[in-house]
């Protein structure tokens, strides 16, 4: 069973879609990172938290038919790479739709959802998914 702290320490980012912006070059990143891969040491101490809008478009996607135990009940589900309006691409599920409706270029927005259960006795883990606009 996973220790709570492993999930707890990421909740801020996962619940609210908080990314990081490099104050040196202005690029925005998600998931959070401490160093900008373009500015290197110039970015140290200059990465600031930024709330992302959760709006973006589908860069590409897959309809998943085989997965880990935690996601078996959701099969078939849509896994997508979503290009957020602020720049970064994010790996997430697209939900509340028929997989046939999903397409490259479709606009989506972030929703807060249950992601998985850590077995029968573990905690329920939450985070972001996306819906078609």
């Amino acid at each position, binding site marked *: 069973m996973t220790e709570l702290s492993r999930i707890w320490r990421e909740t801020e980012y996962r619940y609210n879609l908080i990314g990081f912006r490099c104050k040196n070059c202005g690029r925005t990143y998600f998931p959070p990172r401490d160093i900008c891969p373009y500015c290197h040491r110039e970015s140290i101490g200059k990465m600031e938290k930024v709330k992302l809008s959760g709006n973006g478009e589908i860069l590409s996607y*897959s309809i*998943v038919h085989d997965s*880990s135990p935690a996601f078996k009940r959701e099969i078939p589900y849509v896994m997508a790479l979503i290009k957020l309006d602020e720049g970064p691409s994010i790996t997430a599920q697209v939900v509340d739709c028929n997989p046939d409706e999903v397409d490259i270029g479709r606009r989506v927005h972030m929703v807060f959802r249950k992601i998985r259960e850590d077995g029968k006795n573990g905690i329920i883990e939450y985070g972001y998914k996306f819906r078609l606009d």
Partner: protein
Amino acid sequence: MLSDVYIIGAGETKYGELWNKSLRNLAVEAGLKAIEDAGIYSKDIDAIYGANGLAGTINEQENIGALIADFSGLSNEGIPAIRIEASTASGAAALREAYLSIKSGEYNVVVVGGVEKMTDLHGSDIVNKMSSILDREWEAFYGATPASMAAIIARKYMHDFNVEKEALAMIPVNDHNNASKNPDAQYRNKITVEQALNSTPVADPLNLMDCSPVSDGAAAVVLASEDYVKKNGKDGIRILSSAIAEDYLSVGSRESIYTFNSARLAAEKAFMRSGLKRDDISFIELHDSFSIYALIELEDLGFVEKGHAKDIVYNDIKLDGSLPVNPSGGLKAKGDPYGAVGIGQAVEAYIQLKEKAGERQVKGAKYALLHNMAGTGASSVVHILGI
């Protein structure tokens, strides 16, 4: 003093669902075959490098270096043995470390092996463990699997370059055709394009036949210095160059999702260091854990322009084509035991360059290019071998 590096012996287990063999059984079997093939003894071995991807999670066994050395009967000699881990590129990463250790003049003879025992976990549990090759917290956490990330890449690639699914299917068709001639391969049945296209969906647009299987297997080679080869009258093939490069861990962090920068950089360095050109290469062993990867790799390794792999997958890549790909059967049909793959590619190159490949022999093979990749392209290792 810098030394040239030779492969003087090679061996591998059969790849497949080997229920009666354990992690250590497989490692020892491949290692002994390579040692016997090289005609060396325990007193000759300076070090052992063991490649493995996931034994910690699948088999709940770490300390792989010691395990392999111990059960190979080498504990009394105190021979250094360490494990190298670079996900699905562990094999070639270990081969490279072994190569460097001899090239530098530190060692004369090194045994480098790769092993993966994947069928010890059931069904969807193995999919979960295999997803460790992704970013666990920001990809796999949300339900991404290796197949789904490959499928996301495939859909975008097919969309942007107007590529039919049939072009992807040519990869498993070619792999199975070649594997039918390889006694060590997991799947020796030939398949048709229709069978590939109509196989069970795994992660749409990828089907079962686009995806490498879950495999057990091990492979090993013996590397030796030029000095050792000359003094002992050994007959080997030469590692002309070795290169490794990294890219972002996640597909989503990369500027282009269908460009493997790690493969581009590693290939550039490997060609520069070998002094060879693409035209000199007799055959390639690619990391085609998913059919789409083979197309992208052919492009990023520099054999065809971006978006144009579809022009060569129908004919050129065949065993008797102008650029044979995966004479071994590749990851799809020879099999994909993670940590063993990169070493298994070297075993194939050794067999081919010594013209001992029988029915699957690439005629007049002089130079081989091997590409072993980690995750969804996070690391690439390229080796060029020659006679």
